[in-house]
């Protein structure tokens, strides 16, 4: 327990690491909240964030020798990650809205495609060939593409500000705007939404595209803020964790802020427990599985409680 404490809130470094891990999770989970509220089950945040990161890498590698100024590079890179995620979700989104194909299956298939593409790129076109016998990874990005550090001597970047700001904006969009109203209406009762004149397929597409774009941005923030190079570990499962985070955040944009900090703490805390106690690395994977099942069960009882009173 001491290790968990030190790895999360016990030390400044530990807390900073929790925030670092929480940043991309927050963006991806926010996207999933929008999709899940519309009852479109985008499970493809993993593939979408990987594709966002791939686009970012492509862009940065073009400018490896002569980087532009950070004021140009970072915004362009972030927008590209957003577009990458949006593009990658567009395929399952259209398959869902035009052909009625189950989006869970398609987005998961797309995840595998993205992971295979990532593994190919880091061993092929994007691989750093400057050192012979090099690892499967891209060249290190120039400092101009690194997100500015927010707190000295930590890896906490302005990414966390972007993430929290987008969660707040997400809250307003989802609960105070006509689009958000349509998204929730379609999620609650698509038949009623259609009867009241909403274009259900279009709303579903919007929700999917928004969620993919945010997932892509999450991937962009991760590569520009944490790794600064494209690694096979870009696909380490953050996109799946985001599913659990969005549910733990009660499918609420502001809830997601807290849930992702909690999970960021869990991820960074787990890695320090694992080092300290030598317990399996996969424990956090298991705890995610148990947490999601518990949430599903507890949700039902919470609903029941409200109805009874």
């Amino acid at each position: 327990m001491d290790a968990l404490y030190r790895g999360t809130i016990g030390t400044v470094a530990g807390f900073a690491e929790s925030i670092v891990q929480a940043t991309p999770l927050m963006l991806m989970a926010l996207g999933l909240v929008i999709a899940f509220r519309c009852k479109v089950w985008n499970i493809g945040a993993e593939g979408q964030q990987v594709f966002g990161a791939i686009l970012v890498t492509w862009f940065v590698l073009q400018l490896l020798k002569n980087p532009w100024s950070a004021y140009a590079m970072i915004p362009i890179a972030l927008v590209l990650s957003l577009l990458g995620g949006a593009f990658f979700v567009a395929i399952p989104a259209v398959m869902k809205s035009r052909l009625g194909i189950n989006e869970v299956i398609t987005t998961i298939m797309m995840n595998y495609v993205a992971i295979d593409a990532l593994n190919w790129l880091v061993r092929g076109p994007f691989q750093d060939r400057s050192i012979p016998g090099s690892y499967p990874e891209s060249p290190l990005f120039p400092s101009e593409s690194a997100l500015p550090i927010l707190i000295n001597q930590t890896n906490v970047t302005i990414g966390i500000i972007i993430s929290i700001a987008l969660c707040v904006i997400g809250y307003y969009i989802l609960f105070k705007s006509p689009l958000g109203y349509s998204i929730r209406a379609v999620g609650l009762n698509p038949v009623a939404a259609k009867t009241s004149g909403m274009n259900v397929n279009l709303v579903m597409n919007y929700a999917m595209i928004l969620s993919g774009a945010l997932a892509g941005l999450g991937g962009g923030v991760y590569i520009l803020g944490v790794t600064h190079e494209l690694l096979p570990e870009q696909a380490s499962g953050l996109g799946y964790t985001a599913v659990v985070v969005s549910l733990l955040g009660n499918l609420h944009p502001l809830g997601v802020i807290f849930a992702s900090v909690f999970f960021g703490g869990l991820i960074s805390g787990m890695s320090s427990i694992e080092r300290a106690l030598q317990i399996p690395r996969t424990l956090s994977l298991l705890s995610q599985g148990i947490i999601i099942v518990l949430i599903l069960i507890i949700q039902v009882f919470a609903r029941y409680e409200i109805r009874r009173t």
Partner: protein
Amino acid sequence: MSMAAVLDTAAISGLIASMLELSVPMAFAALGEVLSERGGVINLGTEGVMLVGAISAFSASFFMHSNLLGVVLGALAGALIGLLMAFISITLKQDQILSGLGIYFLGLGLSGFLYEALFSEIGSTIRIEGLLKLPIPLLSQIPVLGSSLFSQDIVEYLSFVMLVVVIFVIGRTTFGLRLRAVGENPSAADTLGVNVARVQYLAVVAGATLAGIGGAYLAISSHAFQAENITAGRGFIAVAMVYFGKWRPARAFFGTFLFGAAYLLGAFFQVVGSFIPYYFLLMIPYVLTLAILVAIARGARQPSALGVPYTRESG
């Protein structure tokens, strides 16, 4: 008969046998999913069920040196996880897609954790023997088909037996009639005295048992275990094959052979070597799934009450 012809028939027979071996895990899972969905419950947790079946079977085979015990344990583990799926989706009436996702994540976590907990100390040579091939007398002498179709192991034979059983149960038994009624119109079935929840529980648990056997066979026939995610999407492909099969057991079952062939094609190019990068070969099954889903979209009518938790109207 020339030498070349002999080699060719041996090669073809070998290819068919490999394709069967690669298809059987998904075939079991697809059969299970048909059962579950005909009763109105989408089990998207099939992938997780397969994973739990796989790690149970692999552990039993490795530590107790009995593959058959492994298969039995895989089936039991599948049933147990299926029971949890049934509890969440039927008793608690939680959204079926979410329930399935929960089961998927749980299976992913359990199999990864158990593998690391049980095997990480052991070292590099964690291999198990496959199941014995049992050639059927006389039939196994037939050229080409004899050494492929009629020289399989017991689980492969079992898959064909289960296909017949599932077809029979759905189409020719009282339970099958109730199952279809529950999947099409649960309130009408309820009115006629069918215990909707019990029928659905049976279907989901039986389906998960089959998926558990599929996972078990995957682990045993692979001889080794990849720590995380040995199924790599096969459970989801099985669900897609239920759509492909229009909820008919035989079509879903044989649909998975397409994927056995796809995995084989990938492995073949990998051995032979080709201009296609290895990671593109790995993509074949996933791209094929997407393509098939597009091709068959809107072609079939699903069970009317699929995905809708049944609540008896009160008053």
